[in-house]
């Protein structure tokens, strides 16, 4: 870190610190906010995202829950129904499957069922994503389950700035949100950045163009943003100019930014690490076909996980997940169509 007189706070912060700041600031701003989850208090969370939170705000507002995902969600619904704002942690997003019914049938539908009488300000957040040797139950990106379950916002930040701004926006949105924290980015040095001193949010529903390009549009989010940027470098060397779009939020989806880019490049590759079938990559392609088909000069294609769980050991995991090489190959296939 380098502190100078001009910018007294030019401290680069990592993705995890950004999330932590969002929680501390929102808890301070909103006395009606509660955080609950397994081991988030005394321990401060498996990865330390809530470290110090209980010490500062007390164990009534930062609650160590029993290992009961369904109850963690269900009680969050009750808290929100009675006026609270809740951030519920899944120790790994993989365990959200154990609270699934309460999420898709109780929480997601509450506003709809009550014709808007009750909106639930609940954020369900947790570490997600592969590329870490976590195996089938510590590597999931299961956002497609929830994208197909109306009533849930889905957020996947890829930078410290977005992590903080999107978490704050989600907490304040008043809608149930599934918030995917990319655990491989938690402490990644290369992406550390300075964060604004003043309060800020990143509005939901706005994608970010991470790299400008003219020949091809790479649409992605989460871990794969960085794979796409690397792929874009490689493609550049081969004279292909790729634009990289980081969706940041899947629901609501920023279609305009995608369509605008395709209007320019006429070519699309969508990259994500979830299983292919009924994953969000296919959703992007379907929307483009519906509203921007005439712009396409080549087949819009996907680079996703194979339709398999995420295996543990490195060679197998690498085999099933998207990689820079796979993205480059798909991109060249599309460009040379």
């Amino acid at each position, binding site marked *: 870190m380098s502190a100078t007189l001009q910018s007294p706070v030019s401290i680069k912060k990592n993705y995890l610190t950004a999330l932590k700041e969002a929680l501390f600031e929102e808890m301070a701003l909103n006395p009606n906010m*509660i955080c609950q989850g397994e081991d988030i208090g005394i321990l401060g969370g498996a990865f330390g995202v809530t470290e110090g939170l209980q010490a500062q705000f007390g164990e*009534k*507002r930062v609650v160590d*829950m*029993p290992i*009961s995902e*369904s*109850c963690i*969600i*269900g*009680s*969050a*619904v*009750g*808290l*929100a*129904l*009675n*006026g*609270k704002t809740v951030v519920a942690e899944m120790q790994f997003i993989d365990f959200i499957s154990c609270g699934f*019914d*309460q999420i898709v*049938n*109780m929480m997601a*539908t*509450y*506003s*709809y*069922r*009550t*014709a*808007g*009488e*009750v*909106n639930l300000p609940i954020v369900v957040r947790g570490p997600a994503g592969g590329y870490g040797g976590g195996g089938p139950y510590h590597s999931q990106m299961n956002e497609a389950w929830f994208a197909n379950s*109306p*009533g849930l*916002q889905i957020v996947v930040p890829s930078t410290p700035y977005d992590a903080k701004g999107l978490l704050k926006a989600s907490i304040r949105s*008043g*809608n149930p949100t599934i918030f995917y924290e990319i655990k491989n980015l938690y402490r990644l040095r290369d992406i550390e950045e300075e964060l604004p001193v003043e309060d800020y949010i990143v509005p939901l529903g706005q994608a970010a163009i991470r790299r400008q390009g003219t020949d091809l549009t790479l649409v992605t989010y989460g871990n794969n943003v960085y794979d796409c940027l690397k792929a874009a470098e490689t493609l550049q060397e081969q004279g292909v100019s790729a634009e990289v779009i980081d969706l940041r939020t899947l629901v609501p989806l920023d279609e305009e930014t995608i369509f605008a880019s395709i209007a320019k490049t006429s070519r699309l590759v969508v990259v994500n690490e979830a299983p292919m079938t009924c994953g969000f990559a296919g959703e992007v392609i379907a929307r483009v076909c519906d509203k921007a088909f005439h712009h396409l000069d080549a087949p819009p294609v996907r680079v996703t996980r194979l339709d398999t769980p995420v295996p543990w050991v490195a060679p197998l995991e690498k085999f099933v997940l998207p990689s820079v090489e796979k993205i480059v190959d798909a991109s060249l296939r599309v460009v040379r169509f």
Partner: protein
Amino acid sequence: MSRNSSAPTAEKKESDQRLAKKPSELLTKEECLEVFRQLFLARYFDVRLIKEKKRGRLKGTLYSSHNQEAILVGSLFGLRPYDWISPIHRDMPAFFLKDMRSGWRNPNRIGMTIQEVCAQVFGKADSPGRARDNWSHIGSRAKKIIHSTSMLAGTIPVAAGVVYADRLDGGDAVALTYNGEGSTAQGIFHEAINYAAVHKLPVVTIIENNQWAYGTPTNKEYSLEDFARRADGFGIPGLIADGQDVFDVYDKVMQAVEYSRAGNGPSIVECKTFRAYGHGDHDDDRAAKYRPSEDVQRGRERDPIAVCRKRLVELGYLTEVEAGRFMAEGKNAMETTNEDFPAEVVEYMNEGIEFALKAPFPEAEEGGRWVFREDL
């Protein structure tokens, strides 16, 4: 073996001491007569809907609370307006019985009006949920009624969260959740009570043990006879009430509620009863086959209205003549006439039905609304 409220558990002994006299013994004559009226109202609501459907003015499945009304009236009568409840399919009358002591037609009552409930049953726009889901899948934050989904036992964690928030705000509200005995096999039932027990949350779990879960008898649902014993795994009180006796239900629930209000945490109250008809009216014919008729007879022998009447006569609150007036008990819906019910009950229900019949259906476009909040 069967236990009653004096069954020994550490916590319960305390609360026993706190309750020398039975709560029901403290009820005035007027209150007892109101309880009696409410039993008729709950029964008539059921009877009337069955008739409306036979008349073809009403569609959709009906889940009858016939023969189980004492559980609803007895458990709700002692609650304060700001306590929370979560009724399910078998508890339709609970929506309007809540806080009825503030006056059946009191606009500020913290319970649903008969108009709202009937509008829901008929699928009209004036339903509290604008008819977006059917039957008992309604609720109201303002009326402190939790909106259930179909998934059984799913409101118990919600109730726990509601009172956790209330306690945080310095309140002393209690949450009452209603559950059939079959639904106690759901994992979330245990997750929620475990959580409530750890935090000593004022959640009272009512188990309406009507001996059947759809087409499944209790011995295939649970290894013990008394579902109240589900409480033993958490070391919380598990009370058993005679579900046919509105005053016994009142006593056991009040005992549980006082125990919760005092900060001792959750409890379970099993109310022994029997399902009068099929699971829903679509199941009436089959139920006649899968349930031995002797069982059904025995299970319906002690009509809650008759049991209550007997008590009121003993108490001298009803003369033999008055007692003889309304003879709804022991009759199936179609066997009853309006003369079997007090006029004010029929009148009240008429207001609901007429309102519902006149009310408009929601606009088709509403189907696309409120997926997310619209107040921004």
